[in-house]
């Protein structure tokens, strides 16, 4: 249900942009108003969500320790997987955010006759995840050629590396290929692995289709239904300089692409995609494991009702005395 529905929603989005631009001439709506609204929603939404998380305290220091802790001086600590200092935490977080350290641990459990359990290497999810996120990031950076003038120095550098193989005209970007492959893999594993399909919601399929739609429309635009790039950049530069213009004759595929991106920006803060920000706030990863060495403060720590020693002795004094255990009061 979630799968088909998500698919159709993305199709409808494409048709909306197509019809809106081709039939109703709503270039101004799809090229200017919606992108502005989407960008504002994206920023404000993310701020809102993160601040909301931030308003809940971290009462306890509960890192998941994934290596030897700091102990006696002659015992080698795993300073990255079980950090005891701020620097260690920064390195751990960098590994987590940039290289998906935890996902790299992934294994596949197999139960064989016997019974005998085997834990095989399972790096595909990690590899596809990493490929997907990094190529997405590089593609976003590449798009800066449409949003800066003069163009930032590193953009042509990235482009020339990305088009290293000099295949086709316009040059084929490696990231485009890898990106589409990775998204497709992530989609197929969601559908084909029974357990993963069982847990999947519409909220899992929709962003996949949406992102796939963005990728496909972008690739079509670059390699097949070419658009007037100069016109496109006039529009994007108009947006970022607050002098919005809608140049004549940019192909409709550009508006479809832009509308899907706008949808993603609007959807982002209200969805699981917020894991982008969330990973930085995760208390099992971003805390040093040093709670015996430094006191972690819980802002809502409150006194609790306890069973005092006096009450204890009061109840058991005669047993204690009989057993020769020292007491505070004789009677």
């Amino acid at each position, binding site marked *: 249900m979630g799968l088909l529905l998500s698919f159709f929603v993305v199709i409808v989005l494409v048709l909306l942009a197509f019809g809106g631009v081709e039939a109703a001439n709503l270039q101004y709506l799809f090229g200017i108003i919606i992108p502005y609204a989407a960008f504002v929603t994206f920023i404000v939404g993310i701020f809102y969500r993160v601040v909301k998380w931030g308003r809940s305290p971290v009462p306890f220091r509960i890192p*998941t320790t994934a290596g030897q*802790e700091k102990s*006696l001086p002659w015992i080698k600590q795993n300073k990255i997987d079980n950090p005891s200092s701020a620097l260690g935490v920064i390195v751990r977080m960098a590994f987590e955010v940039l290289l998906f350290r935890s996902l790299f*641990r*992934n294994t596949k459990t197999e139960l064989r006759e016997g019974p005998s359990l085997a834990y095989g290497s399972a790096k595909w999810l990690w590899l596809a995840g990493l490929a997907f996120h990094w190529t997405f990031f590089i593609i976003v950076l590449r798009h800066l050629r449409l949003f800066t003038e003069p163009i930032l120095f590193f953009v042509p550098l990235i482009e020339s590396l990305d088009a290293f193989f000099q295949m086709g005209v316009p040059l084929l970007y490696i990231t485009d290929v890898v990106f589409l492959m990775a998204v497709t893999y992530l989609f197929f594993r969601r559908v084909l692995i029974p357990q993963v399909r069982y847990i999947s919601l519409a909220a899992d399929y929709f962003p996949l289709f949406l992102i796939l739609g963005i990728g496909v429309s972008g690739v079509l635009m670059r390699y097949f239904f070419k658009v007037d790039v100069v016109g496109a950049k006039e529009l994007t530069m108009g947006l970022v300089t607050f002098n919005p213009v809608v140049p004549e004759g940019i192909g409709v595929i550009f508006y479809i692409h832009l509308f899907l991106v706008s949808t993603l920006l609007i959807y982002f803060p209200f969805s699981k995609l917020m*894991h982008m920000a969330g990973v930085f706030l995760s208390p*099992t990863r971003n805390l040093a494991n040093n709670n015996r060495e430094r006191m972690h403060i819980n802002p809502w720590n409150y006194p609790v009702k306890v069973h005092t020693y006096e009450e204890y002795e009061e109840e058991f004094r005669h047993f204690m005395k009989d057993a020769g*255990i020292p007491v505070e009061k004789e009677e």
Partner: protein
Amino acid sequence: MAVQPKVPKGISYPDELSKVDYKPPEKAWMDTPVVLKPNMFCWGNKEKSLKAVDFPNARAWSVADEDWKLPENWKEIFLEGIRERLDKYRTFRLFMDICVRCGACADKCHFFIGGGDPKNMPVLRAELLRSVYRKYFTGSGKALGKLAGARELNIGVLKELWYYAYQCTECRRCSLFCPYGIDTAEVTIIARELLNLLGLNIEWIAGPVANCWRTGNHMGLLPHTLRDTVEMFKADLETITGVKVDYSFNRKGAEILFVNPSGEYFDPNGNITFMGYMLLFHELGLDVTLSTYCSEGGNFGFFTSNEMAKRLHSKVYAEAKRLKVKWILGGECGHMWRVWHQYHNTWFGPVDFLEEPVSPITGTKFENAKSNKVVHICEFTSDLIKHGKIKLDPSRNDNYIVTLHDSCNVSRGMGFFEEPRYIIKNVCNNFYEMPPNTIRENTFCCGSGSGVNASENMELRLRGALPRANALKYVREKFGVNTLANICQIDRAALQTLADYWVPGVAIRGVHELVGNALIMRGEKERTTDLRGEPLLGKEGGENV
């Protein structure tokens, strides 16, 4: 080697039980109502157990009954409980929001591996609560309902939450693999807190909590019983070693307060571990005291609610203060050390009435414990061995071909791997590791942690123990391992039954039992048996057994 498995009553044979079908059903999980399967859950709490600690909705009830006798406004209480905890725990709010359902955690849970119930996939176990969160606390859930993965809270959902909250041992293995560090233990902890607002606990947890509140320990051992027990150990030790060991309870002015899990006074495997401590302390002449008031290092309150955990453990520092000791030494226990290490200082600090712990024997400062002033016995002992302060004869453990089970709590809630290994390698001649995917941070839970080590849920426990047992079987077949060492009292109490079923012929031993065997003491007679009274290798049919 061909020992027959001991099969508990009502349980099928291992070859039958280990046939697990991982394929989820056709029907969506939200449309599949929970079935409370016998042998898979623990009995509900007794009325008196909740009353003892003033918990709400104390009443007689039974899990098997249709009517769980909930307060009229149970839904409001539950939802208000969620709201309150969303504001108190960033973990909770974050873990409700950011899961992408990648499924990396799915086959990391011992209960899923051994049972195949899709709702035991950590992601889905969390989704059980997440779906309720979405329905009442997110815009999309309110508007789109089921499409957004949201569902109404009703009695069926509540029962499902209860059933699966007590089918998680809070071992955190899933959190190791989660790219965002989502910790199902944290979700389970909160789910159990919420259930306790409605008086929905299990007796195996609620009973010990009530005991601990009153008598200072889970077992409900009274002061004189404790003394008698230790006196009995003393007599046994004298028979075996010829040494009269000293001990004391509630002694003011001692340098160190020693706190251990009370299961060690009660459980046969734990007893011997405790005897190991006694020998060690005596040989060192350590100025240490036990306490009857604080006769429990473990904390089943932690499996109930944060507040209950704090209520039970305030006695640790209170007693240290009253007895005017300098610092606290803690025994071998898993969840005890998760609580002591990650929670104590926050609950009770600053601990400025104690001194920074220093080993009186070696002079080593325990820098990593300087703030909350508690030292793990294995840190203490490995430091002794490193400095050559104790004489050891590892050949006295030659009967044992040993492997080490890393307990989940000290592994992923502390990072305690080298200390016990260092000790074992010094007190045993035969030590073999289980496969790397099943030890250290990757370790599997025994399947009975977090208070579910009852007997009425034996099938659950056996299923949960399958991954651990399987790794054990591997080293048993490959190296002839016959001893599983560990530093956790729940392991010692629970794993023997589970090993007897899956890997018959393996004994469960505390690390300090092995220390006690190997420890050469001043004035001891020639040992012919280990601390269990079993003949040493080469001393069979010896002189005086």
